[in-house]
């Protein structure tokens, strides 16, 4: 082959052509366009067969109404609950719902759901013991349980159960104590099985002094100014039922100032100002706020005079409200210079004194409540509070002024576990100050402020099927020591048997006393295992004669149970719900079963009736006989609908009104506050709590340190919250792999510390650490917690550490419950003697834990 000499011309030619082709090839327009309708996924992946109205239960207090969409999944051809669809007509959810509601849908089909009853054959209980389960029919299991229960005295049994109507009736009829920590917590939560009325607005259970029982909601959409004391938790991040209102308010210009050592996404986006307050010191800020309002007289005098006990006189000696023979509070009339009933006094003194008045013929010195309050807070300056809380003094002063200016369209929302909830030692005091601030601003029972439920009356089981004769007395002593706390014992015994128990102490009671032999766990309430210092409860359960559980899954508690009865899923039951967490309009919502409970599932109502009929038949039959044919029917849904005058029965309500009733009349300010006898007996808010005086506590809030303090290496204050997509330790979520993935990607399986603390401890991201509780406060059975750290500036302080609640799991029957650490392991069970001086209600329990962090 001859060689062709490449000529200069060819050279240029080749180069040129190639270069030109670069320019001309249509490479710039590579994007293939297809028309939209040609999309590979132009059809839904499922076809809808029906939509079942439901109400969200046991995931938060909002109780969103929605439809569960049932359809055929095209990929599998199986008909099942697919997803949720919002109901825009519902004034609470307004067409929204959250990830937990969606999780519940898939929870129905969780392959690890318990569908048969199980009985233990290995008598040894414990997490390292194989229970040797044998299956048994639910009927038989119940028979055996009843036989065993018959052998025990009522003093030897305790129901770890929320105070739903059936549990209440069962315990009362058997004369057995019931103990839990959060009956009041939410709506349907407790009525899953009994499926009846939810969220009874118990009028007597006043929030003023129990600090836990919220009988109100907050008008998030119309409020102008909100203060959030730890309200912006990760738990709140998912609460669709309130978030949609907060968002609306925010778009209209609500100002939000938040205090939380943790900066959550709610702080990022929704807050105008955020202060990383020192844990446990919110009380100092609110006390300073009260002082500023009183000193500058920027409170709502009209409201204070007309709707509170501020002008009522307190006897300097007894330290109780002075009342006349009618039980009415008395005020000092500045015109007539004498004591007059508060209701008829035209010019009651709010301050000044002491006034000398005659009570029962004796001269006593008396002062109005507001004056006492002033004296109580006289040293609580902004500067003082700033030093304690690390919130700048000028901020406290300015925020107080702005808050007062925006009144009465202001509020300090607080739900269950944020610092004004029952879980922190000083919560009751904080809640008290918040109530006072709501009173001073006149935002109670006012739109834009704190909303009360108007005009809905809901009967309970006791009203529908009154017991044929008075219930037997309860055992004198409670394993949760409630009997040692008269403030709550009185409510429980006399006013509201559904009142929360002293869960902070039940483990201690079971472990330290020998009074209990039988423990009944009613799910949804695996509580004891996920709660505080479960190790103490576990140890105690080992020695019991009988432990049984009614649950949806085989989770940790069953390692100590002799029988487990399979429970239906909340979507497999009907409900009637009265929503009081956004009670702007009176409203009732009903839910229908989405499907029949599979397997051998047995409802709580059925269980309660069976046990009741066997052990205390006279309370479970309509005529007090023992005739099983006369067993009480107990349809509270129908009774409730009738009482409100909405429908004859649930069937009619569902078919004719689509299961939703809203009374959309405008909110009438200051109506319920009188009607419900809030702060009895005068339909006034009580700032001054006589009950506390009787148990040697302060009737008006005063600054107090936390119970425990930071000491040496034990200097990290424990903060707890939950991921928006996990609900406590509920396996509906913990056992959902997709949600676990989200958790992992968001470091929810880690403990969170600040970069500053991380540096001091020589830790870097992902290191393993061990957390230990100060042994001074956890003398017995400590169980250090091991986890990886996530170092994040979302923890804004170097003196705390954040744990996520509920992620710890040990049950080997849950395929996806794969994580180890449990916040509760670090929180000591309470000794009632230790509690009493700090807490008149005995209900503070998750609070005040200081831990040591060390590299593992």
């Amino acid at each position, binding site marked *: 082959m001859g060689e062709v000499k490449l000529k200069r011309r060819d050279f240029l030619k080749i180069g040129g052509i190639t270069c030109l082709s670069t320019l001309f090839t249509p490479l710039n327009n590579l994007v*293939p366009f297809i028309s939209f309708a040609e999309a590979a996924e132009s059809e839904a992946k499922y076809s809808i067969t029906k939509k079942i109205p439901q109400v969200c239960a046991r995931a938060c207090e909002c109780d969103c109404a929605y439809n569960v969409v049932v359809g055929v999944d095209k990929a599998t051809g199986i008909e099942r609950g697919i997803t949720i669809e919002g109901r825009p007509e519902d004034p609470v959810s307004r067409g929204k719902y959250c990830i937990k509601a969606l999780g519940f849908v898939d929870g129905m089909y969780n392959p690890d759901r318990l569908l048969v009853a199980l009985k233990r054959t290995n008598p040894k209980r414990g997490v390292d013991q194989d229970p040797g389960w044998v299956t048994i029919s639910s009927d038989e299991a119940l028979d055996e349980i009843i036989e065993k229960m018959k052998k025990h005295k009522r003093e030897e049994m305790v129901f770890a159960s929320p105070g739903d109507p059936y549990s209440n009736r069962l315990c009362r009829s058997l004369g057995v104590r019931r103990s839990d920590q959060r009956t009041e917590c939410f709506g349907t939560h407790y009525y899953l099985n009994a499926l009846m009325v939810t969220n009874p607005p118990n009028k007597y259970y006043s929030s003023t002094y129990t600090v836990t029982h919220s009988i109100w909601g907050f008008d998030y959409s119309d409020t102008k100014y909100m203060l959030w004391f730890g309200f912006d938790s990760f738990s709140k991040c998912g609460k669709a039922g309130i978030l949609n209102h907060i968002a609306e308010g925010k778009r209209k210009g609500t100002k939000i100032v938040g205090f939380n050592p943790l900066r959550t996404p709610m702080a990022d986006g929704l807050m105008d100002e955020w202060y990383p307050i020192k844990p446990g010191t919110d009380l100092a800020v609110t006390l300073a706020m009260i002082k500023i309002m009183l000193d500058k007289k920027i409170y709502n005098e009209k409201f204070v005079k007309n709707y509170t006990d501020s002008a009522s006189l307190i006897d300097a000696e007894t330290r109780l409200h002075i009342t006349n023979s009618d039980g009415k509070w008395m005020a000092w009339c500045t015109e007539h210079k004498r004591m007059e009933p508060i209701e008829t006094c035209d010019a009651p003194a709010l301050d000044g004194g002491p006034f000398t008045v005659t009570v029962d013929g004796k001269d006593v010195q008396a002062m109005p409540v507001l004056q006492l309050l002033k004296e109580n807070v006289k040293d609580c300056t902004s500067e003082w509070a700033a030093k304690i809380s690390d919130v700048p003094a000028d901020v406290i002063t300015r925020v107080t002024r702005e808050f007062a200016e925006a009144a009465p369209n202001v509020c300090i929302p607080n739900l269950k576990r944020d610092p004004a909830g029952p879980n922190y030692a000083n919560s009751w005091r904080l809640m008290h100050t918040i109530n006072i601030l709501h009173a001073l601003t006149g935002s109670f029972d006012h739109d834009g402020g704190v909303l009360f439920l108007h005009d809905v009356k809901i009967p309970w089981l006791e009203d529908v099927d009154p017991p044929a004769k008075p219930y037997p007395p309860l055992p004198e002593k409670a394993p949760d020591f409630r009997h040692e706390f008269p403030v709550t014992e009185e409510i429980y015994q006399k006013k509201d048997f559904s009142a929360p128990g002293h869960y902070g102490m039940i483990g201690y009671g079971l472990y330290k006393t020998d009074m209990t032999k039988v423990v009944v766990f009613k799910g949804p309430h695996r509580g004891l295992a996920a709660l505080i210092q479960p190790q103490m409860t576990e140890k105690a359960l080992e020695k019991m004669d009988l432990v049984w559980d009614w649950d949806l899954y085989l989770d940790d508690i069953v390692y100590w149970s002799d029988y487990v009865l399979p429970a239906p899923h909340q979507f497999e039951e009907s409900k009637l719900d009265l929503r009081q967490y956004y009670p702007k309009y009176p409203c009732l919502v009903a839910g229908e079963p989405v499907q029949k409970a599979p397997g051998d599932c047995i409802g709580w109502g059925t269980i309660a009736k069976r046990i009741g009929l066997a052990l205390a038949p006279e309370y479970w039959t309509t005529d007090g006989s023992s005739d099983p044919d006369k067993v009480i029917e107990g349809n509270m849904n129908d009774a409730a609908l009738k009482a409100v005058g909405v429908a004859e029965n649930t069937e009619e309500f569902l078919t004719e009104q689509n299961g939703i009733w809203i009374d959309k009349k405008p909110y009438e300010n200051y109506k319920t506050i009188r009607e419900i006898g809030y702060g009895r007996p005068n339909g006034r808010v009580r700032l001054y709590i006589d009950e506390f005086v009787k148990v040697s506590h302060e009737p008006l809030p005063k600054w107090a340190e936390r119970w425990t303090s930071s000491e040496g290496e034990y200097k990290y204050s424990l903060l707890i919250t939950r991921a928006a997509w996990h609900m406590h330790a509920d396996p509906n979520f913990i056992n959902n792999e997709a949600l676990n993935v989200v958790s992992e990607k968001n470091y929810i399986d880690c403990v969170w510390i600040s970069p500053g603390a991380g540096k001091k401890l020589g830790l870097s991201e992902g290191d393993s650490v061990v957390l230990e509780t100060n042994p001074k406060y956890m003398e017995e059975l400590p169980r250090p917690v091991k986890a990886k750290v996530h170092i994040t500036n979302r923890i804004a302080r170097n003196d705390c550490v954040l744990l996520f609640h509920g992620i710890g799991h040990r049950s080997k029957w849950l395929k996806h419950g794969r994580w180890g650490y449990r916040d509760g392991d670090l929180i000591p069970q309470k000794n009632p003697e230790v509690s009493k001086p700090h807490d008149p209600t005995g209900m503070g329990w998750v609070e005040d834990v200081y831990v040591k962090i060390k590299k593992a």
Partner: protein
Amino acid sequence: MGKYAILLDTRFCTGCNTCFYKCVQENRLHESANQGYARTMVLIRDKGLFHHRCMHCEEPSCVATCPSGAFAKTPEGIVLYDSQPCLGCKSCVIACPFNIPQWDMKKKEVIKCTMCAHRVLKGKQPACVEVCPTDALEFGLYEEITGKAKQIAAENKLNIYGLEENGGTSVIILTKEDPIAIGYPEVSKSATKARGPKTIVGTAAVAALAYAGIKKYTERRAEIEGKKDE
């Protein structure tokens, strides 16, 4: 049908991930989600929230990089994936400047948002938008959404992400913090314009020159050597 866009105002986002799980249920993606693949997921990070979701670029890199035509852009502004022709080369995974497409190893397909084409076709909003408890997500016509985004951003001194990134996208994100500080990728304003194929043609030209050069050079050497030999 017009051109659509999604507005995400992160001020209202709480990181609840309801959008994530709704997408999973609506599109029946449980199995993929169990392995960590999602069409949208919100990650809570130090400086803010990061939404991992397809931006529906005006000139999508995924489309430009996909050899099989599995990716396509529609006039509605939506970028769609069709698993049928896909080779599984995973170029799209690496090519997307926002790191969006994920390769589901079990299903052997790309996980990527369709902007719920099946719902939009029926006049509904995308599932994740509809479900957002705070309406942090909003769906609408492109012009309206971008107009609104600019207005909100100006009024509230917010950053806009997506308007110009990668040549503009149909998902507009408003943030308080600098989006790059939150962790959103710093993406050049210009789109991927098939830089590669063009380069190849250019290279061919250069190679041709090199060929000629080598030839000339060796010929010259031979000549010189030939002369030397003489």
